[in-house]
């Protein structure tokens, strides 16, 4: 069992919460660009840090929200384990709480599932400054509503996520990166076909000109797949650049993330770079065109303004009225006075 030095600021955070809001929850500050700007007094959670429990044979790590993801990953790597969902981290200060609150998953997502699937439990602070524990540290747990899964991607709208228990996985024994000269839509069709077979794929990214594949698994399975698929070897570091969004395709004044059904039409987005085997497209532009939301919806997907300023200040895909109404009610259920990150996700939420 491992722990790491840190500090438990639960009581100080509770005191601040009890004093009232609105509050703008902050971790390492590396993801502050994401979502709508929040009007509220800053409540820093970065000092609430440290690994509370890690037992490699349990495949579970529990850490406080301010613990840097890099620190967690280094600890896991020492035991030949990893966070399978590969959260993008936008700098060494990026925290676990920020990763869970923004809910972003990396290139392995279509092959192993999203961040949400790895959250086993969370401790949340309610507006009274009480600590609520949802879920736990075991994989199978169906007692009570799964409020811990609701925390993933909630942008802190339900309160400070003080502590998170994550399922971890063994590192694959072998990884190889391959690159192919192939145009985007042809590459997507090819990769989609491959995904119907039990192959050791762990990444499929197109940079607009070339297809990048990653294989992860046992020695023999990876070798056999490489022999079958061909392609040129490239450095595995390419996948770090994809994961952390430092690859050149992400550099533009305006950046949209467009999530589309991976096998459906991509009309209007066909020339974009994509990850997640075509399910996550990155549209770059010089100016914000609000028509992107409508075009994404027509294709059965949704768009997020990742970088740039929309005229109406919105960032995320508008929700159907009934679903938005339910969002308001769920937010009000856990934060009736609206003190935590008000309007971080949608105006009026």
């Amino acid at each position, binding site marked *: 069992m491992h722990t790491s030095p840190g500090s438990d600021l639960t009581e100080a955070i509770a005191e601040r919460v009890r004093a009232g809001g609105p509050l703008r929850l902050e971790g390492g500050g590396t993801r502050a660009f994401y979502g709508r700007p929040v009007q509220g007094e800053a409540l820093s959670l970065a000092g609430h840090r440290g690994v509370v429990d890690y037992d490699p*044979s349990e*495949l579970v790590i529990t850490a406080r929200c301010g613990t840097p993801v890099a620190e967690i990953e280094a600890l896991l790597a020492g035991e030949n384990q990893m966070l399978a969902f590969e959260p993008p981290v936008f700098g060494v200060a990026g925290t676990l709480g920020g990763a869970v609150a923004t809910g972003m998953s990396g290139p392995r997502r279509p092959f192993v599932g999203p961040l949400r699937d790895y959250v086993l439990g969370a401790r949340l602070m*309610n507006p009274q400054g009480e600590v609520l524990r949802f879920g736990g540290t075991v994989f199978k747990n169906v007692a*009570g*509503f799964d409020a811990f899964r609701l925390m993933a991607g909630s942008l802190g709208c339900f309160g400070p996520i003080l502590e998170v228990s994550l399922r971890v996985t063994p590192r694959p024994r072998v990884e190889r990166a391959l690159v192919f000269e192939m145009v985007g839509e042809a590459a997507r069709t090819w990769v989609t076909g491959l995904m119907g077979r039990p*192959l050791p794929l762990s990444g499929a990214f197109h940079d607009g000109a070339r297809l990048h594949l990653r294989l992860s698994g046992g020695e023999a399975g990876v070798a056999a797949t490489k022999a079958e698929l061909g392609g040129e070897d490239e450095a595995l570091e390419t996948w770090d650049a994809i994961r952390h969004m430092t690859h050149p395709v992400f550099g533009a004044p305006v950046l949209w993330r467009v*999530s589309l059904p991976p096998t459906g039409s991509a009309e209007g987005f066909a020339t974009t770079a994509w990850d997640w085997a075509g399910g996550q497209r990155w549209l770059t532009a010089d100016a914000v065109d609000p028509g992107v939301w409508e075009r994404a919806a027509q294709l059965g997907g*949704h768009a997020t303004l990742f970088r740039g300023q929309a005229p109406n200040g919105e960032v995320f895909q508008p929700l159907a009225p009934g679903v*938005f109404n339910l*969002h308001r009610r769920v937010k009000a259920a856990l934060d009736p006075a609206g003190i935590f990150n008000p309007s971080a996700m949608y105006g009026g939420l």
Partner: protein
Amino acid sequence: MLDQFDARLDADFPPVDPVRLIAALKPLLPPENLKTQAEALRPYETDGLAAYRSLPAVVALPETVEQVQAILRVCWELGAPVVARGAGTGLSGGALPYPGCVLLSLAKFSAILEIDALARTARVQPGVRNLAISEAVAHLGLFYAPDPSSQIACSIGGNVAENAGGVHCLKYGLTVHNLLKLEMVTLEGEVLHLGSDAYDAPGFDLMALMTGSEGLLGIVTEITVKLTPLPETTQVLLAAFDDVAVAAQAVAEIIAEGVIPAGLEMMDGPALRAAEDFALAGYPKNAAAILLCELDGAAPDVAEEIARVSALLSSCGATEVRLARDEDERKRFWAGRKGAFPAVGRIAPDYYCMDGTIPRRALPNVLTEITRLSEVHGLAVANVFHAGDGNLHPLILYDAAKEGDQDAAEALGGAILELCVSVGGTITGEHGVGREKINQMCVQFSGSEIDAFHALKAAFDPKGLLNPGKAIPTLARCAEFGGMHIHHGELPFAHLPRF
């Protein structure tokens, strides 16, 4: 009849006149889809937990989403409780009717609407049987991974309601991990779509919140599931041990080695002997415990993992390690495991199946403590586990005809669940809370946590009419039954090491 609902503790509805209720529902459905006579209601008075029985006022069997909407609007307007039911195989009384409720059966929603082989998805109605999905896509080289033991009969809608698990969960995930999209109807009769055909959806993850909510938040009318490619090769190892604790330690070693088996199951001596007599699986009957370890994937990788795990099991103290020689033997190994519950039913007049999860490292201690508790309560226990994910199914053997036996079985069951919580686990890994474990919820959760659950429930169901008295206890119930609350330092089993 056990554990009737108590209006004082569970819900406080003004009674609804059944005549008025039936009159309001009659115009909405063909006569054969509305059951009102006592003998027609009787089959619906219980689900798979047959010790709990209660009669609805009426059973409605809608065939369209519009009919579901109309029925729910009537319930909303009249303030009538409504309980959804799938195949009725649930083991925690989740589909037990609230007395005088509308029992909403989704049995007629039994169509597979669309299979998309390329996207590896299937759009299905909630009444489709779990196994029927895999059968319908097998020719495409695909399957639906979550496989509860009842998969031949249970419906996918019930799987969503309970976030069902099964043998393959450790590698392939629970129901929630294998869903893309839900269509649901709110109590007010509004149709909502949660999730997406894309890999994610905007907003809060309400689909995840709906999954496992035991019918308390809305009625699911359509489900899009993820399909998985059938593995190239599947092999099973059987390892025998002469000490249960040593077998438990071997489980931890396999996981720590970096191997994620497709299934990792354990049976103790009483369970494996009953299973062997029932299924003739070829289990070593003199063993104190056996492990079944299934590995799947690309053929060369599986061969390599079989060699590694075999060596590991032997070095951990297995007295015998056997690889299923062929597909027939592999199926026999699993037939024994899947038949363990009915097999135990042959060695005792009744058994009570528990469902708790614990951290794997607590297995040896918990097994020792279950043995002690079994002696204290005077009832034998046979243990079957999803060992890979720490999900225990102690089967408490008793005789309902014997005075006091049933109460003793319930008391022992409650003590085992509290033991699970005390070592950092949970009172239910896959069966759900339902009616059965409503009191133990007060052991696992604090009053503030239960308050938060009620607030979430009210966000979806402001009148509290959906499946009342289930899954989330009222604080009044906790005050009456939650004397063993762990949140104020009153730890049950304080002598056990806690993790």
